[in-house]
């Protein structure tokens, strides 16, 4: 049968067979044509990009993996063994970068706290976790556990917070900030929309103050000024002050992100939940916040990522986080001039954490999608 015959041949309604789509209108070839070579400009851009990647990627790979040195006693030995990156420096300092000055014999506590944190995160982040209810209850108690494990007391040897540093310090500040700033931010956002003028005023003043002052200034206040305001002789841990300030700072940002979400909720949703007789907190918890937070996910995660990266700013008031330790390690005469390796490792650590958060937020957005439009 020729093609012409097929064109002429007629079918009863609904009887026409599904024919395969013509070549170059679907499949990988189509994708390449459509996305890489659809116009002359596109062809030029594709070729330029290829050239750029070719110029950058192979040298980077050979620097990082092929010509690199993983074990050496010092910089000079590295030089002799290979022309690429000297990862030996990083691997020698690895445990130091993670635990910093935490007493060597007690480091299992940090590890345990980290594992327990992962265990708390799983039921929190995945709603299909088996026995999720118990997991969530456990997650509520995790902060107490972590506090006890990291600081000691009640049978464990006490550890001073000034020994905290490195990756561990970043995680402590980041996780505490993230966990506390979201609820505080939500309360502030609701307060800013409150009918009660006093509550509204307080929230507005708080938010505007903390958003209007740079985090570094706030950290300086935490490290020096606060002792002027506190009664003389009162001991107030520096790390605790930093935690409070970082939390309040990001809570102010969080409040504005959540407020954006709240404003996107149509008035009809409030009216429907009101007309059912739901109380204010019920309608917020069941109806308004689930929708508002869903809309705000990109902004919330944005704030989380910003907060996590800002944990490096504690360097300024003398706390040695990962970046701080890296910088101080550069002064080691045995390993002179290896700043690229240090900064790249720090960058990779932060990138993995932040990229993970970003991917999770995308997953969450897809999961919460319940059909088009409201």
């Amino acid at each position, binding site marked *: 049968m020729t093609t012409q015959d097929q064109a002429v041949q007629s079918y009863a309604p609904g009887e026409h067979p599904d024919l395969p789509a013509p070549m170059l209108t679907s499949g990988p070839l189509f994708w390449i044509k459509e996305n890489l070579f659809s116009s002359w400009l596109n062809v030029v851009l594709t070729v330029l990009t290829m050239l750029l990647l070719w110029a950058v990627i192979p040298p980077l790979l050979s620097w990082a993996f092929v010509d690199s040195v993983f074990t050496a006693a010092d910089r000079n030995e590295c030089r002799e063994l290979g022309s690429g990156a000297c990862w030996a420096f990083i691997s020698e300092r690895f445990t130091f970068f993670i635990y910093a000055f935490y007493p060597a014999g007690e480091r299992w506590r940090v590890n345990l706290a980290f594992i327990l944190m992962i265990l708390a995160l799983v039921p929190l982040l995945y709603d299909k976790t088996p026995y999720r209810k118990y997991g969530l209850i456990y997650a509520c108690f995790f902060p107490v556990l972590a506090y006890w494990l990291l600081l000691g007391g009640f049978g464990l040897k006490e550890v001073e917070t000034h020994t905290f540093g490195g990756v561990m310090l970043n995680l402590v500040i980041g996780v505490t900030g993230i966990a506390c700033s979201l609820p505080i931010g939500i309360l502030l956002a609701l307060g800013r929309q409150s009918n009660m003028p006093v509550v509204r005023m307080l929230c507005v003043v708080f938010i505007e103050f903390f958003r209007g002052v740079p985090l570094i200034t706030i950290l300086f206040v935490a490290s020096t000024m606060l002792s002027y305001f506190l009664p003389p002789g009162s001991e107030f841990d520096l790390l605790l002050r930093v935690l409070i300030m970082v939390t309040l700072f990001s809570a102010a940002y969080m409040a504005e992100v959540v407020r954006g979400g709240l404003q996107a909720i149509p008035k009809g949703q409030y*009216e429907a939940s009101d*007309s*059912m*007789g739901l109380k204010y907190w019920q309608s917020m918890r*069941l*109806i308004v916040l689930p929708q508002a937070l869903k809309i705000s996910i990109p902004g919330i995660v944005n704030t989380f990522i910003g907060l996590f990266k800002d944990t490096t700013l504690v360097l300024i008031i003398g706390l040695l986080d990962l970046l701080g330790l890296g910088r101080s390690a550069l002064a080691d005469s045995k390993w002179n001039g290896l700043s690229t390796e240090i900064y790249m490792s720090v960058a990779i650590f932060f990138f993995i954490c932040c990229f993970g958060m970003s991917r999770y937020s995308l997953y969450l957005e897809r999961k*919460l999608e*319940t*059909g088009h439009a409201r």
Partner: protein
Amino acid sequence: MAAVETSESAVKSSIDTASEPIIRMTGVHKWYGQFHVLKNINLNVQPRERIVICGPSGSGKSTMIRCINRLEEHQQGEIVVDGVEMTGNLKNIEAVRSEVGMVFQHFNLFPHMSILDNCTYGPIWVRHMPKKEAEDRAMHYLERVRIPEQANKFPGQLSGGQQQRVAIARSLCMDPKIMLFDEPTSALDPEMIKEVLETMVELAETGMTMLCVTHEMGFARTVADRVIFMDFGQIIEENEPNEFFSNAQNERTQLFLSQILH
């Protein structure tokens, strides 16, 4: 004709005019800022009575029924619903709201919950009903509005008419004494209007006290005990439907009817 009369007399006899009205509005005034929306509204609604409220847009009819469950606040006069006076007292407002169902023009279903959850959240959280019982009740009412098979879908996946029927079922799950309808069909396509109206007619046949703001005059003719015409924030005219449509007294009413009845 005779059949109509008997059914009407049956309807009339079901209303106990001597009993205490379930809604009593006396001298109600409301302002939006300087704008005087409701002017001296006096309205008594008996239990089991069905009232249709019509009037041009901006006449205050939606505002009036929204005052009944205090989605809008009135500034003067008295509104008593089921023996409770509507004041700023939050406890009273919540109590009345749980007894008064409301159906909105734009459905206002909760888009992040399944249809079933939409129907069970009120009974569970306001009436503290066990989940199983609330779900049985929800399925009962979803069957009554003829969409039980959609129970596990989300509102965004339903047509407008289906969403509005879910909204009616959601209100019924609270076992209300009064149902308020705020232009329930004006956001719907013509073919969907019919299915929603049928549901409302069936509801009327069960003896529910209903106040409907609507322009569906056919509906008013079949089910209403009383039709109220509002304009300029006032009740201009009220009458039983046959009289209202065939023998309107006020000039404004006649003009309005001539415009919508073609």
